[in-house]
């Protein structure tokens, strides 16, 4: 099978995956007990008002009608209106989604930069004290729960030393809104970003480090490294230019998948640091039975995972011609 056919088949799979994902989401949310009026009932919504609202939202329609309607809406790129806020879902989540991407993106970049370097050095200095110590540290980071790492960093840097704020995305009371640079480029923002991003970086650090180390070990056993060494190249050149570069391939795949996973993992970090991101909005929407908002949030996060996997597959084929199109 040629490359083109492979890509075509992979795209078809992608479409089927999206459809299955969307359907599953729809069914799951409708199976959840309660409805969007539940939260108002104890605040005095009368039974008549409740019924009227349910009808307004179309929730009294048979499930398949709601399903078809929602699918039609989604195909036109419309996420609908939030049941609770009564605003277009897209307006609510775009800002939140950006906040999450900036946070988790920073965390991942730090994690992979440090992870790849650290892993390469560990592989190079096999059996050294550095390697053994490094593995222990990495494994500790890997097994620490996100919220625990967050709380430890908070206690040290926010409460004890007082260097960083404990929550939020900026100092309150300032101008809201503004362009991308104004929002995400200010020193105040970076100060707020530091601890949550570091938390994410620590948690996501282990995968690239360990993976890099083990592929390094494979590559270092390869004949061409011996030849390069025999050619009399400096150690540094062999390490970075030949060994590390050839070990990086699997990292690319893992990175794509990790990006997807990190989006989902942001919920905990956002909760601990009160970060106004997608994860928190998602939790609220689920608690309030705000189906359109909750589904859009899950859909977006899931899409990142699906698309990143897709990209990983394609990159792999591109980077390594030995990979079979099967």
């Amino acid at each position, binding site marked *: 099978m040629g490359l083109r056919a492979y890509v075509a088949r992979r795209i078809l799979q992608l479409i089927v995956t999206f459809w299955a994902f969307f359907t599953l989401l729809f069914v799951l949310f409708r199976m959840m007990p309660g409805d969007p009026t539940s939260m108002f009932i104890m605040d005095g919504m009368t039974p008549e008002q409740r019924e009227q609202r349910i009808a307004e939202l179309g929730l009294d329609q048979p499930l398949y009608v709601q399903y078809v309607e929602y699918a039609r809406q989604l195909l036109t790129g419309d996420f609908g209106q939030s049941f609770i806020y*009564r605003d277009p879902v897209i307006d609510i989540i775009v800002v939140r989604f950006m906040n999450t991407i900036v946070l988790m993106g920073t965390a991942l970049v730090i994690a992979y930069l440090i992870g790849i370097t650290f892993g390469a050095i560990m592989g190079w200095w096999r059996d050294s004290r550095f390697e053994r110590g490094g593995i222990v540290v990495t494994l500790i980071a890997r097994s620490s729960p996100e919220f625990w790492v967050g709380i430890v960093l908070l206690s040290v840097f926010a409460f004890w030393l007082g260097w960083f704020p404990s929550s939020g995305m900026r100092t309150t009371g300032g101008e809201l809104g503004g362009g991308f640079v104004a929002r995400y480029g200010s020193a105040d923002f970076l100060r707020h970003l530091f601890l949550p991003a570091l938390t994410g970086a620590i948690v996501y650090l282990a995968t690239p480090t360990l993976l890099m180390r083990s592929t390094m070990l494979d590559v270092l056993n390869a004949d061409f490294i011996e030849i390069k060494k025999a050619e009399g190249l400096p150690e540094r050149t062999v390490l970075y230019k030949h060994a590390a570069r050839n070990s990086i391939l699997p990292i690319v795949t893992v990175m794509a998948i990790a990006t997807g996973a990190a989006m989902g993992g942001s919920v905990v970090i956002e909760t601990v640091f009160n970060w106004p991101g997608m994860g928190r909005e998602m939790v609220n929407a689920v608690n309030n039975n705000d189906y359109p908002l909750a589904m859009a949030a899950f859909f977006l996060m899931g899409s990142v995972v699906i698309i990143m996997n897709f990209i990983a597959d394609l990159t792999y084929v591109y980077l390594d011609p030995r990979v079979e199109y099967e």
Partner: protein
Amino acid sequence: MVEDNTSRRRVLKGAGVAGATGLVTSFAGCLGDDDPDVEGADELDEEVPEIHLVAPTAGTNPFRNELASIIADNWEEIGFEVDLEELEFGAHVDKAVVQQDFDASLLGWGGTPERIDPHTFIYDMHHSNNTAEGGRNTPGYENDEYDELAELQVTQVDEDERQQTVYDAQEIIAEDQPRTYIANEGGYHPYASARVTDVDPTLGEGLNSFWNMISATPTDDDTVRFGYPSEIISLNPMQDLATPDRQFVRLIYDQLYRIDEDGFPSPWLATDDPEIEDDGMTYTLEIRDGVTFHDGEDLTVEDVEFTYEMYADSPTYSDLVDVIDEIDTSGNEITFHLEEQYAPFTANVLGQVYIFPEHIWGDVDPDDLVDFEDENWTGSGPFEFRDWERQAELQLEAFDDHFETPNADTFIRIPGSDTSTLVNSLESGQIDMVGAVPQPTAVDRVRDDDELDLADFDAVGYAMVEYNTRREPLDDRHARRALSYGVPKEEYVEFIRDGMGTVTHTTISEHNEFWHNPDVEEFYEDLEAAQQELADGGYGWDDDGRLHYGADQ
């Protein structure tokens, strides 16, 4: 029994030395175990059906979750079979209040200021008109004698007469126990005493109260930063709103009357108490002079009239003003003619309708009211809207032309992911007040911190067990009364809630002094009394201690 012991131990651990009395009460029931001290019916019929108790999960409400497992143990102790189901808030409300698919449900009723008037607790919650799915009479309680009293109090404009009726009504439900009224769950809200002074926690609301928000005074700058564990839905007063939303909407919009710190409606945009004619159906009042909206336009009697008409046409709030038949205006005076007598009119209608600027809302179609976006949210209240980014912050600033200018120039509301994050932010100096009760461990930290303090408040609402009187055996008053004896109210307040709140036996809180009847029948945890009650009702026990209907019942 294993589960039984662990849950008790958890409670008693917190009690420490002082727990000695609690220990005696707690284990009193265990002594009799399979061999009830009370003689039941000799001839037994079939087993009493299992009781399906719906309660909150530990995540939703740790205190009530703990209480539910003790209640379930106690009920099993006196011979019932109990199926305890723990649900999240939304699912719980749906199952118990909407679907009415429960036998007993442990839930709370909030005590917002408009519920200080006894109407909600007496009429809405216990009158047989309100038993439909989603109605407030969740137990499906029906008692003709009670209904008459509940209807009578609506018509009594004379407060002393109305008080007597409300007293009588409380006596009846205390005897019938359609609900076990457990405790008014007061508590503490933490704040930074070093950064804010003049906090004013009021009945039922603590630091969320309107009076606190206009009174709180920042010490070193001009801003008060207020944290709350959830975001508000909207500032549009015509939307379906929950309590946290109203707590901010009412800063921006004014009413004719506001519920004051003592729980009574007091004149706000109105100059004085309304003049009520002898038939109790005509209310006349005068509007303050010189009030303006945030955009500088005058607030006139026409705006008030427009507002009430708009409410009448709105799909969300027409119920609120249903009782108004006609409105007249003359000069600065406005007169409301009611369709029938409605004693809580001042508190629950005049005190709840927000006055809107006609020049902004005048052309909005009634069906579009809920979606209408007035970007500046122009009202006439003591604070005006500045800016809002959801999940991040809502900024308000003092409206200097208001007759009650707030003490803070800027008031910022910061939603938190949960209460503990907010307490963290309070400790690190990023916020100044939290409108929620923290976990006991956090309370201790706040106590130890020189810069922080706790604001105490009492509650009007209460935690309760509701009994589904549509079902057996809860249709029987004896069964309900017996179950009420199985609820450890004192243990709940003292140990589980660490002293926050007060035990109650009636639907009107003791902190609502004027309407609270202090002499109703009281139900404390007493498993022997519970068994006696069941025996009196004709029930009996088999050799395993399981409760049966008596043959003669």
